[in-house]
């Protein structure tokens, strides 16, 4: 009995920490409609700052002051991000804001590495709360009791802040209608800044409070931000009460899940989220998210099949690509091969994001499923490369068919989070099911058949398959199916009223995109000779997003340019600088601020490139 009670209390303590971070994320999203990927970085920053301050100041007063100061300092960092970056993007597409915050994630990672180094840092214990109490004979850390109390206290304070102060009233008003709030004399620029302060402060506080519990390290950011997203989505975006409820549920699921399903601990939370979203598409306490009034919206221009110039350019590019093996050595060819594979991956993601209007945070799942489709065939059936390259898109397509059925029932950020959940589930299976997948040892020896083993031969194979895949996706975009897909995105109401089954089309599109991502994944497996769970981990999904957004989601060539630029930046910077994250992060932030429509999207808007309106 005591064991279960202690387990229960542990879950609640975890829930409190989670709630602090998630509440901040939820508040920031509610008002600014920005999905702040950097929120986890603020959490990490809070922990590092608290560590340093607590070391410097020492003693009981010093410890608690360090926690408070770290939280405030993190709030200030949030304000700086708002002033320098977000402020320029409020009227831009939501996804660009997301991309910018991702740039900040990279910057913070390298800055933290520079300041605090790569080692785990163990902070001091909380003065006065070092020991344990006995609960039904079982030991339970005193500090955890403090955390348990803190959750409801912060919830109450936030409620008072939002419902009993003028600031809170104004924030809630601006959440609903920015333009009207401004027309009533409210300077919402500062309102948004202050919201960023409060939200980031909560993240910083959450991080700072961790130092007596766990070592501070450079992986805290991504881990927590994903969990916080899950909490916010399960609770309902923008609902602080929902975030609390979800944090408690998830804390308890984690605490007890490990007892019930020790094999699939990583999956349980995501399964829970998937179930919640399927039953309640806007989370436990969320409501349909009306588009915040006063946020910018640019109607997309009609697409056009390539004219003469475009075709000549495409053929020219293919000719150049075909000629490259004569000029370059194996290393360059390997990089180029990878670039082409990523271009196909990005094009498949763009297919659902652009024409389909569905943002995926978990597209790497299908890349990875493709790779495993090939790898498992090699490992268990000793299949050849051709069979592997057939099995890759099939395997991924089947996965997309299954997961897509659930995903297309949702929209917006909820859909995106469900794709992430499925990606995490797939990743966990690959990671934990040793017998079949080899776990994190991966699958080795996935080599091309003899005829394709020279670098140049595999390069040509990839060129044919990737260019072919991209062209096929493009063809589909211009087909009646592609048009109907866009129709459903442009106006679901009208599409439904002219007999188009939008959900069904989205489902098919999801599957098609999954299959092409799988083909890319299969090729990738053979180009590397191995398959690892990291192929479907979050960073790869984010890479895909960055490539598509960098190029411009509203253009068809965008993802290809985005993939090329991203991969070039990535590989080149790793070669020339130790701080590639910092450089890449700054580059992304600058690109987003300079090219708010993506590279190709922005170029297309310049008069020189603009098609004359007929």
């Amino acid at each position: 009995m005591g064991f279960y009670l202690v387990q229960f209390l542990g879950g609640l303590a975890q829930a409190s920490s989670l709630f602090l971070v998630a509440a901040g994320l939820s508040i920031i999203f509610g008002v600014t409609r920005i999905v702040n990927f950097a929120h986890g970085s603020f959490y990490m920053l809070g922990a590092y700052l608290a560590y340093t301050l607590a070391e410097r100041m020492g003693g009981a007063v010093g410890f608690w002051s360090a926690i408070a100061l770290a939280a405030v300092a993190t709030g200030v960092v949030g304000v700086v991000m708002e002033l320098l970056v977000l402020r320029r993007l409020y009227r831009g597409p939501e996804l660009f804001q997301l991309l910018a915050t991702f740039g900040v994630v990279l910057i913070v990672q390298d800055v933290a590495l520079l300041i605090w180094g790569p080692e785990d840092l163990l902070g001091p214990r909380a003065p006065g709360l070092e020991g344990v109490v006995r609960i039904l004979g079982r030991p339970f850390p005193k500090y955890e009791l403090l955390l348990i109390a803190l959750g409801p206290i912060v919830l109450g304070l936030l409620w008072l802040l939002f419902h009993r102060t003028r600031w809170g009233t104004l924030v809630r008003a601006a959440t609903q209608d920015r333009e009207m709030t401004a027309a009533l004399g409210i300077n919402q620029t500062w309102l948004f800044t202050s919201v960023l302060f409060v939200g980031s402060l909560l993240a910083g506080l959450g991080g700072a409070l961790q130092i007596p519990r766990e070592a501070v390290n450079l992986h805290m950011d991504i881990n927590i931000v994903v969990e916080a997203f899950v909490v916010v989505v399960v609770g309902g975006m923008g609902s602080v009460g929902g975030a609390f409820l979800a944090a408690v549920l998830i804390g308890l699921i984690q605490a007890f899940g490990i007892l019930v399903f020790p094999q699939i601990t990583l999956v349980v939370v995501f399964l829970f989220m998937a179930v919640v979203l399927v039953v309640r598409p806007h989370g436990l306490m969320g409501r349909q998210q009306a588009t915040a009034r006063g946020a910018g919206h640019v109607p997309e221009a009609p697409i056009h099949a390539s004219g003469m110039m475009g075709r000549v350019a495409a053929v020219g590019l293919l000719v150049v690509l075909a000629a490259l093996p004569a000029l370059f050595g194996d290393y360059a060819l390997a990089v180029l091969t990878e670039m082409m594979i990523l271009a196909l991956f990005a094009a498949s993601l763009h297919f659902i994001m652009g024409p389909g209007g569905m943002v995926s945070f978990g597209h790497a799942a299908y890349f990875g499923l493709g790779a495993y489709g090939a790898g498992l065939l090699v490992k268990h059936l000793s299949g050849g490369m051709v069979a592997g390259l057939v099995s890759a898109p099939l395997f991924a397509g089947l996965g997309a068919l299954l997961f897509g059925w659930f995903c297309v029932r949702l929209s917006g950020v909820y859909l995106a989070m469900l794709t992430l959940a499925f990606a995490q589930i797939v990743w966990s299976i690959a990671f934990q099911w040793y017998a079949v997948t080899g776990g994190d040892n991966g699958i080795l020896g996935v080599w091309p058949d003899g005829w394709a083993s020279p670098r140049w031969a595999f390069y040509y194979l990839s060129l044919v398959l990737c260019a072919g895949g991209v062209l096929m996706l493009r063809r589909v975009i211009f087909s009646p199916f592609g048009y109907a897909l866009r129709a459903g995105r442009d106006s679901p109401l009208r599409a439904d009223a002219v007999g188009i089954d939008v959900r069904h089309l989205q489902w098919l599109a999801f599957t098609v995109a999954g299959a092409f991502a799988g083909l890319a994944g299969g090729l990738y497996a053979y180009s590397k000779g191995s398959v690892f769970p990291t192929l479907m981990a979050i960073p790869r999904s984010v890479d895909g997003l960055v490539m598509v957004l960098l190029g411009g989601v509203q253009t068809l060539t965008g993802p290809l340019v985005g993939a090329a630029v991203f991969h070039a930046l990535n590989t080149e910077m790793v070669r020339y600088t130790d701080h590639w994250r910092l450089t890449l992060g700054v580059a992304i932030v600058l690109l987003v601020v300079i090219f708010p429509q993506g590279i190709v999207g922005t170029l297309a808007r310049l008069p020189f490139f603009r098609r004359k309106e007929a």
Partner: protein
Amino acid sequence: MTGSTSDAILTVEALNAYYGRAHILSDVALQAGRGEVVALIGRNGAGKSTTFKSIMGLVDDRRGRITFAGNDISRSAPHEIARLGLGYVPEDRRIFTDLTVMENLEVGRQRPREGAPEWTPERLFTLFPNLAEMRGRLGGGMSGGEQQMLTIARTLMGNPLAILLDEPSEGLAPRIVEMMAHAIIGLKAEGQTIILSEQNLHFAGLVSDRAHVIEKGRIRFGGTMRELAADEAVRRAYLTL
């Protein structure tokens, strides 16, 4: 333009507005004197709402000169304009549906202003008695007529020197329209300057001193209500089907 007043609180000159490539307003000129009720009359789509939004700084692409209470506001941000004492009541009401009546009023609250009537919730409840009984109700749970009253009350909480009232009778049952007319006449008696847009000539005639007629983004007439009533040609050209 006839009917100009020497003591103008709001002057709009050569106002042009664009949505994308569409030219919505062409050289619109308006004037309102202190304590006056001025009507901007025109059909749906004639440019009334765009005129008001442009004055409030809610249209990105606007050009022209707008002077309010001695300040040039042609390049000011909406919140700056509102803080100078120009209130705005949008045609679609835009009540904060998640906020209570009292909270809606709180959002509109500004400091008292010299030369403007001073409003408190209690004083507003005497003007709109319906609202007094629903202080704690959420904006989303109110009827169209109640929302219309709340949106006006919310703007008055800013103690404005003048208010832009966009189509106060739009979409309301005739009975509520009558109440609205009484409220506006009451505000006028308080000395409140009002610029209202209307399609309903009868309504405009009941409450206004002067009128401008707008059609296809251009001002076609300016004068007193009496002059408008006498000008058969203008009414026929711009206001009838």
